[in-house]
Each structure stands twice: as C-alpha cells, then as structure tokens.
C-alpha cells in the first residue's frame, strides 16, 4: 500500500470525487470510522465490452441506484475517464460511500489488480495496473477483479443458498430477508482487523492476524465455502470464489476455461483450436452445430431443421430454439442438446476435480434452458468424477441476475482489508 493510498483513505470524509483530486469534505452524518461504515453503500463498477455500469450497492446487496453508458471505443484513457465521470455522478446521490470502490473488468486480473490480458474490444486494455490507474482517477482505493469472478462473488454472497437470508430475484433488486443481515456467515465488516478486545461482552468474530488477509492464520469455516459460476452465452466464462474470496490465480487466469479442450481433435473453435468447450456450448457453437446437423434430417423428421433451412430465417439458431423444439422429440434439437450437455458435464467435472466447490452455479442467456441441461449434467458427472466428490457438489441456476457483477464487485470491496 503506497503513501498516496494511505492518505486518501479516510472513512470519516464524505466522498465527492472531483477530477482534480481535491476532495470535497462534507462530513457524513454522524459518521465515525467505527460506527457507521457498514451503512454506507459501495460504489461498484461493472465494465463490459459494450457498456459501463455503475451502481451504489448497500450492505444487503441491494442496488440502490445505477447508471449505464456505452463503453467508449477509443481506448484505455477514454474508458477510465468514462468510469471516473460515471462514478462521480452517482456518488453525488448520497452523503457518503464505502471507502473502497469495487470494479469488475473483463480479462485476466490478478489479486493485486494488475490486468494481464483481455479478449475485449477496447484498445490498450491489457498489460497495465488497472487498480492503480483507477485509483489515480478516482482518488480512492480500488479493488479490481475479473468480471466473471465479480459475478461469482455476487452469487456467492447473495444468491440462493448463500445463507445470507435474502437473495435477488433474477434481474431484480433484493429485499432484505427476515431480520437477518447478510454476512451472517461471511462478515463484511472490515473493522475486524483487530483482535477481540478486552470487553468481555463482545462476541467472537472472524479476526485475522495483524495486517493479514482473512484466511492466513484463521481456520476455514464450513461457511467459507467455494463456488464456481459458469456463464453460458457468447462465450463460456467461469468465475471462482474459493473460501469466501474471489480467486484469480497467479496471473489472473484462474477459470479461463472457455477454450479448455474437452475433445482432442474435435469441433473447430473460433479461436483456431479444436475441441474447446466453446465450440460446443457457446452461442456460436450452438448455431454452427444446429446448422451443420440439420442436413441429416428432413423437414418431416425435424421442424427445427425445416426452420433452419427456411429462407425467412434471419435469427441464428440458439439454445432457446433448441429447447423450444426438444420437448416434442425433435431429433435435431436432441442432437445439439446432447453435445451441449456433454461439453458442460466435462467442464463441471474438471472444476469438481480441481476444486470440489460446494456449488456450481449456471447463468447466462443459454441457461433459460437450465431445466433441460442440469439434470443431464447431474446424471453424467459420476462418470467423470469420484462419488464422494460429486455428491458434495450441488448444481443450480444463478438467482442474482444481471446485477451479479455489480453486487459481487461491491462485496469484494467490502472485504478489502485496507
């Protein structure tokens, strides 16, 4: 932590972010460093190839307010400036915000916030210290993480089964659950950088060693479990939470599994290799397989094949189409369904073997079809994974919805121990 960061981190000061770095010093109402921290919403950013989303997220994981602008196409500087402007605008809506900003970004972001590489259409968006550049722009500490990890974190802290007592309905805003604040299992209070103090009435909490990140020296609890979030859409993304924290790996590449080869010599993928997961289960892979297999079936045998061939079709075949026709036994739909399920089953087997997370959660446009896909994966996992491993892993559909990245970036910011 460098000198500059130390000086700007002052939770008692209201946080209007100004371009020149001169901070407005409105006092937060009745705020002191210890007492009201957890009431303050987190400023969270979800950066994508298409749009920049900014939001204020409260300690219950509720999105209090959000903004969205298109991602500038001109390069790194413009994107950072856009983030700065959006952050400044939204921060004015409240008196005080949490003293750390959470930012999700596509690409390989390591646990120091350095961006190694990103397959996204933003010129210059690779090989730079993302967190530091944002900190310079925002004049506040920043936690930067990969966007898939941010979404996984959102699902981990506020999805169904998170133990938080409340979860956001798909696409919607969470309401607090009955009486129970989130963090019953995972405390989001950074004030516990201290030992249990002398007062005998203070209950025990999670107290990491001095100056250390939470898990050093503190026993893993049953609640600090692991989760993998598999997003099935344009690409196949995997976000990881291990023992309660987003897991980036040594180079920010943990979970980069879209081009994992599950079938050596298999289908050609857009990346140039053969047999990648994406070749079978991504939107492009589904479209191409549907078109290719349709030649095996006559119109009479397969209404889906007929549709694919029809002149008036401008839509690309998608999982939605597959599952529209599958219940009637359409053989083309069944053939594609088989490939998709097999690819995702193998992906889950790899995740389970490596990490054995308690939960593997699915999201993405393709997972409207989860009801068809998950049962097949569950059936197949035992072929690839040891019994006691797959029995401990539940497969389910994500519940947090489109705001998962924002909610997760906010959760990561709350856990930051500065």
């Amino acid at each position, binding site marked *: 932590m460098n000198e500059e960061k130390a000086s700007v981190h002052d939770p008692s000061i209201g946080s209007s972010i100004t371009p020149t770095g001169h901070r407005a010093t409105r006092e937060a109402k009745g705020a002191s460093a210890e007492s009201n921290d957890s009431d303050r919403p987190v400023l969270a950013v979800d950066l994508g190839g298409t749009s920049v989303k900014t939001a204020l997220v409260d300690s219950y994981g509720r999105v209090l307010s959000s903004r969205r602008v298109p991602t500038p196409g001109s390069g790194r500087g413009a994107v950072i400036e856009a983030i700065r402007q959006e952050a400044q605008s939204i921060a004015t809506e409240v008196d005080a915000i949490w003293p750390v900003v959470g930012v999700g970004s596509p690409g390989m972001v390591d*646990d120091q916030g350095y961006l190694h590489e990103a397959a996204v259409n933003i010129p210059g968006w690779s090989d730079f210290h993302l967190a530091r550049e944002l900190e310079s722009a925002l004049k506040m500490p920043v936690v930067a993480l990969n966007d898939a990890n941010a979404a996984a974190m959102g699902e981990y802290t506020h999805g169904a089964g998170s133990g938080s007592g409340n979860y956001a309905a798909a696409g919607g805003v969470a309401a607090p659950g009955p009486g129970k604040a989130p963090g019953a299992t995972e405390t989001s209070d950074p004030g516990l950088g*201290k*030992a*249990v*103090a*002398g007062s*005998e009435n203070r*209950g*025990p909490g*999670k*107290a*990491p*060693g*001095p*100056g250390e990140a939470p*898990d*050093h*020296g*503190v*026993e*893993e*609890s049953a609640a600090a*479990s*692991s989760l993998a979030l598999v997003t099935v859409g344009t690409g196949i993304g*995997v976000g*990881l939470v*291990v*023992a309660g*924290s987003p*897991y*980036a*790996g*040594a*180079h*920010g*590449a*943990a*979970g*980069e*599994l879209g081009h*994992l*080869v*599950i079938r050596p010599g298999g289908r050609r993928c857009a990346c140039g290799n053969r047999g990648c997961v994406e070749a079978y289960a991504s939107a492009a892979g589904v479209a191409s397989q549907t078109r290719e297999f349709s030649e095996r079936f006559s119109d009479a045998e397969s209404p889906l094949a007929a549709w694919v061939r029809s002149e008036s079709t401008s839509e690309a075949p998608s999982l939605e189409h597959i599952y529209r026709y599958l219940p009637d036994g359409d053989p083309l739909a069944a053939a594609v369904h088989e490939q998709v399920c097999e690819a995702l089953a193998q992906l889950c087997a*790899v*995740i*389970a*073997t*490596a*990490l*054995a*997370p*308690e939960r593997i959660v699915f999201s993405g446009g393709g997972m409207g079809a989860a009801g068809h896909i998950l049962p097949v994966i569950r059936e197949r996992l035992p072929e690839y*994974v*040891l*019994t*006691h*491993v797959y*029995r*401990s*892993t539940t497969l389910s559909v994500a519940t947090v919805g489109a705001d998962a990245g924002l909610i997760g970036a906010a959760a990561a910011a709350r856990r930051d121990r500065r």
Partner: protein
Amino acid sequence: MKREGNKPFQRTMNRSLVLYALRETPGLSRRDLAEALALDRSTISNIVGELIELGLLEEIETGPNSEVGTGARGRPAVGLRVRDERLCVLGLEISAERYRAVVRDNAGTIRYRTTGSRQFRSEPGDAVATLVAELSERAEAHAGVRVVGAGCAVPGSVHSAKAHIVYSRELDVTDCDLPRSSHVGGARSGEAGGDRSGETGGERSGEAGGRVPGGAGYAASGPGGQGPREADGQIVDSNRGLRAGAGRSIPIVYDNDANCGAWGEVHHGTGDGRNLLFVQGMPGIRHFGIGIGVVVDGVVRSGANHGAGEFCSTAWNGDERSQLSLDAERASAAGTDAEVRSRLIDEMLRNLVPVVSVLDPSAVVFGGFFREHFNELHSHCVGENAAGMERIAPLFRSSAAGVDEIAAGAAGMFHQQLFRVPRYDSGESATTVRWNEVAALLEEAG
C-alpha cells in the same frame, strides 16, 4: 469436547494471535504486539508472561538499530520469539506396508528421520497410534528431542476436521476413524472412545497428573456413541473403564498425502508458495495413485467433502474400472517398464492441463514417482501431440524436500494448524491443536 464459553475462547484466541504474530514477525516487543493486535499492554503482558512460563516464548535482545521494538525514551525494547527448537513435531507418511518419519522443529530443521515396515491396511488407526508412541520415544532416546505433536499423511480421501478416512484404496478402508492422539508412557495407546482435551476452559493446564489431557484417542463414532466424561479433570472412558491421565498424550493431525506435500511446499519450498499444485505419484501394490494438493492463497484447500485433487487412480470407486488407459497391474510396472512409464506420464499430464487451467497456479511441483522421473516430464510437453502441455511446462518444479517431502510436509501441516487462530465453532475440529496440550508436553520435558 465441551465447547468453551466466550471468555476462555477470547483468551485462547488472543494467545493464538500473539503466537501467530510472533511467528510471522519474530522480535516484536510487547508494545509492538499491543499495537498490532489492538489489545491493552496489560493483556499482552499477561499472555506473554504465561507463554514464557510455558516455555513457548523467550525474550531476545533487540539492538538499537533494529527495526522492531523501540521502547520509550529511545531504549531498545525487549523482543520476543517463539522457541522454534522446542516445537518438535513428528511427520509421518504411511502406505500399506511401510512408513517414513521425520521429526521437524518449527524452524524447519529435521532433527531425526527413519523409515520402516509396518502393516497399516484395514486398521490403520491402531497402527498409527502405536507407531507415533514408539517413534516419539525413539526420537527422544536417539536425538534428544521431545515430540509435542504428530502430523500424519494418509493416502486417500481424508476428512481432516473429523480425523476420518473417507476412502483409501491403498489402505483398503472406507469410512474409518483415526485416533486424535497417541498415549505415550502409562496407559495403553490407541484406545477407542475418547477425545484428547480435558480442559474445562481454564487458561493453564499441564500440572502433572491432574489436567493432562487424557490419552484415549478416537472420536466416538456414529451418532449415539458414548463419549468420554470428565471426572476430577481426568478422562474416564465409560465404554472401557480405562482410566487415563498418566503418561502423556501426543495430538495427531491428519491429511491426504498429496495435501501434506503441498503443505511442505508452502512452508519450505522455493519461490512463491501462494498458489500452486503438488502432484504426487505413488505406485502401490495393486494400483498407481496420483493425487493433487491444491494451494490457494497460501492455504491447502480440500474442497467439499475433501474431494479436491482426487485425480486419477488406476482403480477407483471400488471397482477395477480405470481412469487411465492402463490397468492397475500394468501401471504398477511403470518403475521398470519405460513404455508403460511413458504412457502413464503422458496421461497424467493430459489430465493435469485442465486442472491447471482452472487454478492458474504459479508452479506445479512434482513429488514421489514424478519427482524421481522429473526429467522425463518435459520431453512429453513438446511436439504436435503436446496439446496445451507446452503451455504448462514452464511451471514444473521438482519438490524441494526430496524423499522427505510428504513426511516433512505432514509435520509442517501440524505446525500450520498449531499457529492458526481458532474460530469459535472449531472446538470440535480434529485439526484444532490446543496450545495447552503442547505446553503440557513441553512442561513435562522441562
């Protein structure tokens, strides 16, 4: 074991925090500790005084130029250090018919080592308890070291918190409890039915005879099992009428063997031990086992139901179906048959690539059979059929500790658990090592 109330828990936790802080930064003064942990000077003084008396800490001189511990008025404050050389732990690696053992202190120095034959199949618990007791006595006789705990590396899936083997092909057991301690000198070791702590929440223990934790080691298995009860500070096992309390009780902590190798790398490997894989190859009599220890953020992760890293065995799930294309008998010839070995290595690497993709480790460390044949690994990672292996080859390393990698790692695992700050609800966990027990053993040693 009774759960402690809040007050004694706070004392336990604060004591662990002091020890943890001093392990991370030797030489801190009482004032440094008070500041770092946000505790009163008097609280710190009490804890430090108690730990010095128990023989776990000692004061050291810190000179005027030292960076830590400058006292008031510019006088150098007295620094503190953990007495590493007193924390000697037995690290044990077992297989169906053999064992390897080291005694390692907290600084990582190996003070004693030995190997031998012993039957561990079918009833590994009894054999381990007996062996721990024997080796402790031998280590004391031959090397003058007093063993204060044991870490045991078990081939197979191990539930460390319950001291329980989920499944081990090598040892031919399923759902098997293990003793949480071994009794040395006095009543018989390895009796079933008790657990090791006789504390009622006080801060001190270790008075001779009275509060020494009882010897009977096994957790009561099954729901309705009769646990031990306390009488006058001693454990009475109502199942067998065994009266423990004489002699001393050495706590034992368990984990899967590949995980122990990973612990070893975290503590005394070269380079970045924060995110790595430890890949262990173990030729067995009827199979060839391959396990992975997964380290994330400097901690070995077992995953749900301790399944992480259960990689390939040529016979799994109890039947003879092979995950590799080699059957068990052929695979066990890998040591002598170059062609079999080549196929085995090739398949292991192909299965490893996806795991590396999930975890993005900074290093992949090879132990056991793969360490012995480390030079052959790279030759598989080039050429047309390399399929992603060339990408991971730069991560390969051979384990730092050589043949002692698992046993020393198991000892390192015990040290790690010893210095972990406990959670309030971890009272039942078999990996929670109580400083009181260790201190009792030290006090007896003098």
